[in-house]
């Protein structure tokens, strides 16, 4: 199995070729404004190496393009919101907790209709079919091209949302439709927000994925395209086009997954030290531990499956202040190669300290010869103290665990830290994110309330649902393993109600085998 992994970051676009789970070649190219030409450059540079100019089975891209669009309020489109579940929740309509500027940009129209379900699967109210048809006609007449549909308890019973999709397909077939149960869990407002953001990114997703395809085709590669999602697994490009929000946090996830792969460790802490920030996370069974709580994206509350990450202002480009001695949080960022002392600049950075201390060999070492030893030691101690505190904050067990240090600024991580059994550094660690993209798996998840079932039976039922979803998303059934399971009894509900969340992941299915089956 040969795969190319690409990470499109804010500064660099990295590409790697993996053959039989090993890195054959890796390259770094500057990210370009149009994204596509940066990918094309990276692919051309990669393929210039004869070892990497071989046929590949898949290209996997990780990108922060969609989350940046939301954060920077650009390339978003108007959305019609359809909420089903009236007369409940009427005082908190769609967009009610959005930042005003973003709501003004995205809100095209809002429809609130009767229907939906209760926690036990009973219909809440009969679905207002006539109201749905009227809404669809208004959407068509206003020329809105993207619709988000959210119905109460749709993760338990999506039938109201699918009925709405069918009506929309009939009356305004050119509108793209996002159904909230495809994206989220229990939590109407957060799930609706995810659907609205997704719908607002529809046009951008279509053009971006088409551009990715073009870059790959232009580079002469003939292989299916996958995009990585927040949880470190992949989706087929067609699905990614429909669900751009699922790739929001893929950059950080990929570097953690890549670190796991390069080191062979599946349970460890990971620190990815970049130019400006360090991201600290935890690997469990080879996947990042997810944030449990509400995650805000561009000021909007969501329940996305995002890795639980702590970002601190410490990186290779961090400014070093002298009184008192402090590293970061300001950074020279992408200007490192012109502003750092060793590169002929005038700003003392963490990179200069590392060169002076002999931890790193870049630039002109003689330019940091006059940096006093006491300053070097104090700066390194400050960086160590910051890492130590925050790595300990992210640890979830008390014993010593290994720490994987990756990223271009990993030299700032000392060789010993309290609470850490060993510091692991790996070859190609600076391209861990692209490696993570290349080795990503396919996953499926179920999150439902079960009643009158034993705990074991409820988990087994959830697992079957998750496995079916993974296979639908392109996984090979035989390779699926359970990567996460969580069950929680629900207070006050009768019938031993149990909420079960199960996630499975497995290898990308070989398309030929699928065709034969």
């Amino acid at each position, binding site marked *: 199995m040969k795969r190319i992994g690409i990470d499109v970051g804010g500064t660099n676009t990295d590409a790697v070729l993996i053959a039989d789970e090993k890195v054959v070649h890796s390259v770094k190219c500057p990210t370009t404004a149009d994204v596509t030409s940066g990918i094309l450059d990276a692919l051309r540079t990669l393929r210039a190496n004869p070892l990497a100019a071989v046929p590949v089975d898949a290209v996997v891209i990780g990108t922060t393009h969609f989350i940046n669009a939301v954060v920077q309020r650009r390339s978003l489109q108007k959305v019609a919101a359809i909420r089903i*579940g009236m*007369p*409940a*929740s*009427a*005082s*908190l309509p769609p967009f*009610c*907790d959005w930042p005003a500027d973003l709501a003004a940009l995205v809100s095209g129209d809002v429809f609130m209709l009767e229907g939906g379900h*209760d*926690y036990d699967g*009973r219909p*809440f*109210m009969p679905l207002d079919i006539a109201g749905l048809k009227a809404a669809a006609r208004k959407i068509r007449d206003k020329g809105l091209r993207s619709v988000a549909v959210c119905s*109460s*308890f749709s993760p338990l019973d999506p039938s109201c949302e699918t009925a709405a999709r069918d009506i929309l397909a009939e009356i305004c077939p050119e509108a793209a439709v996002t159904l909230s149960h495809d994206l989220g869990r*229990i*939590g*109407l*407002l957060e799930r609706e927000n995810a659907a609205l953001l997704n719908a607002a990114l529809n046009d951008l997703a279509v053009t971006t994925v088409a551009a990715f395809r073009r870059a790959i085709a232009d580079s002469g590669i003939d292989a299916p395209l996958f995009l990585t999602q927040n949880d470190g697994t992949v989706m087929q490009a067609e699905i990614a086009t429909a669900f751009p929000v699922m790739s929001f946090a893929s950059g950080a996830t990929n570097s953690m997954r890549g670190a796991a792969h390069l080191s062979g460790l599946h349970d460890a802490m990971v620190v990815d030290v970049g130019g400006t920030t360090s991201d600290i996370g935890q690997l469990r069974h080879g996947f990042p531990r997810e944030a*449990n*709580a509400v995650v805000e994206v561009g000021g909007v509350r969501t329940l996305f499956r995002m890795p*639980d990450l702590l970002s601190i202002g410490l990186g290779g480009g961090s400014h070093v202040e002298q009184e008192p001695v402090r590293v970061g949080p300001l950074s020279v960022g992408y200007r490192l190669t012109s502003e750092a002392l060793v590169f002929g600049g005038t700003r003392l950075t963490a990179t200069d300290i590392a060169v002076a201390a002999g931890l790193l060999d870049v630039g002109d070492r003689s330019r940091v010869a006059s940096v006093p030893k006491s300053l070097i030691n104090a700066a390194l101690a400050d960086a160590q103290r910051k890492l130590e505190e925050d790595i300990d*904050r*992210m*640890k*979830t*067990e*008390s014993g010593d665990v290994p720490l994987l240090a990756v990223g271009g600024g990993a030299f700032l991580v000392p060789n010993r830290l309290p609470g850490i059994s060993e510091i692991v550094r790996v070859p190609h660690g600076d391209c861990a994110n692209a490696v993570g993209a290349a080795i990503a798996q396919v996953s499926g998840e179920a999150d439902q*309330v079960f009643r009158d079932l034993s705990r074991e039976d409820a988990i087994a039922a959830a697992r079957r649902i998750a496995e079916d979803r993974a296979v639908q998303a392109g996984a090979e059934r035989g390779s699926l393993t359970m990567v996460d399971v969580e069950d*929680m*009894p*629900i*207070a*006050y*509900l*009768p019938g*031993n*109600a*149990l*909420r079960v969340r199960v996630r499975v992941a497995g290898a990308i299915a070989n398309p030929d085998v699928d065709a034969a089956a």
Partner: protein
Amino acid sequence: MSEPELTTIGLDDIEALAVGAWILGTGGGGSPYLGLLNLRRLYAEGHRVQLMSPHDLGDDDWVAVVSNMGAPLVGQERLADSRNIARAVRMQEEINNIKFRAVMSVEIGGGNGVQALMAAVHLGIPVVDADCMGRAFPEAQMTSVAIGGLRPYPCTLYDPRGIEAVVTKVPSWKWMERASRKICVEMGSIASTSKAPRTGREVKDWAIHFTTTKAIRIGRAVQEAHRRHEDPIAALLESEGGKKLFTGKIVDVARRTTEGFLRGSALVEGSDADRGDRLKLSFQNEWVVAWRGEEPIVMAPDLICVLDSVNGHGVGTETVRYGQRVTVVALPAPDVLTSPRGLEFVGPRAFGYDLEFRSVFSPR
């Protein structure tokens, strides 16, 4: 009698109230976030809520006691709507042929801490600065008015589909809990309720006073300390005369459902001054007992608050998770709860722990 002095509650007071109510929820009562969203929108439309001292009530005034009853999970799909709680209060006026002078929450802790304000907007009457728990508790009979032996009926329940129910008469508060819980489950495990109306005299004698301003004060202390990059928990303790009991990290959470409640325990591994030590927290919807080894170091009705060590906000029993950095503190319970009769209703034995209540604040 002169007109009582009313204070207008500002939006910043409500933001602080939401933080303080969540802390006073002692792990239960559901998050006040959706209620806060309702009030933000109502305030943006120009509505304002007035706050009234319980001392300013006339003996014969009627006071509505409101509560949003049900499972917090259902509340995440059927979102709090201020008009529903107001309708439950109107039902009490209709069946009893009375007019309410003011409204109060049955519990200041958790999401119910803002329900009285939501009702007040539509009813056009002030909120009484008081409640019946001074915190959150899981059951209807765990209130100061039950401890006072006041009449438990009638109770109105409202579902926005147009379902209106009344529990007309019951022999005890325990029966009120059982009968109203059944109706609530049929309504989808969520209902807007208005408990037995109280007279001004009853509120003066048996309600727990000044808990709305207490919740606002707590929220403000925490928010301001956090904003100034100072320790929010130290600010809370100083403001309320609380005690810091333990600091550490959650290392285990075990949950189970028994008799319709969320029970279980969370284990905190000590850090800083408590390094090497462990604290076990038992909960039934709310935090009930904290144990150091076999020894209970604090128990209900003392308020056991598990707080996020960084921002000082409350940590709920439904959402507490591995790895959270928490500080466990105790706040003093209202006197009525720690009286001998009060302990029959809300002492450790009411939660199934055969322990003699000893307050962490009583002199050794």
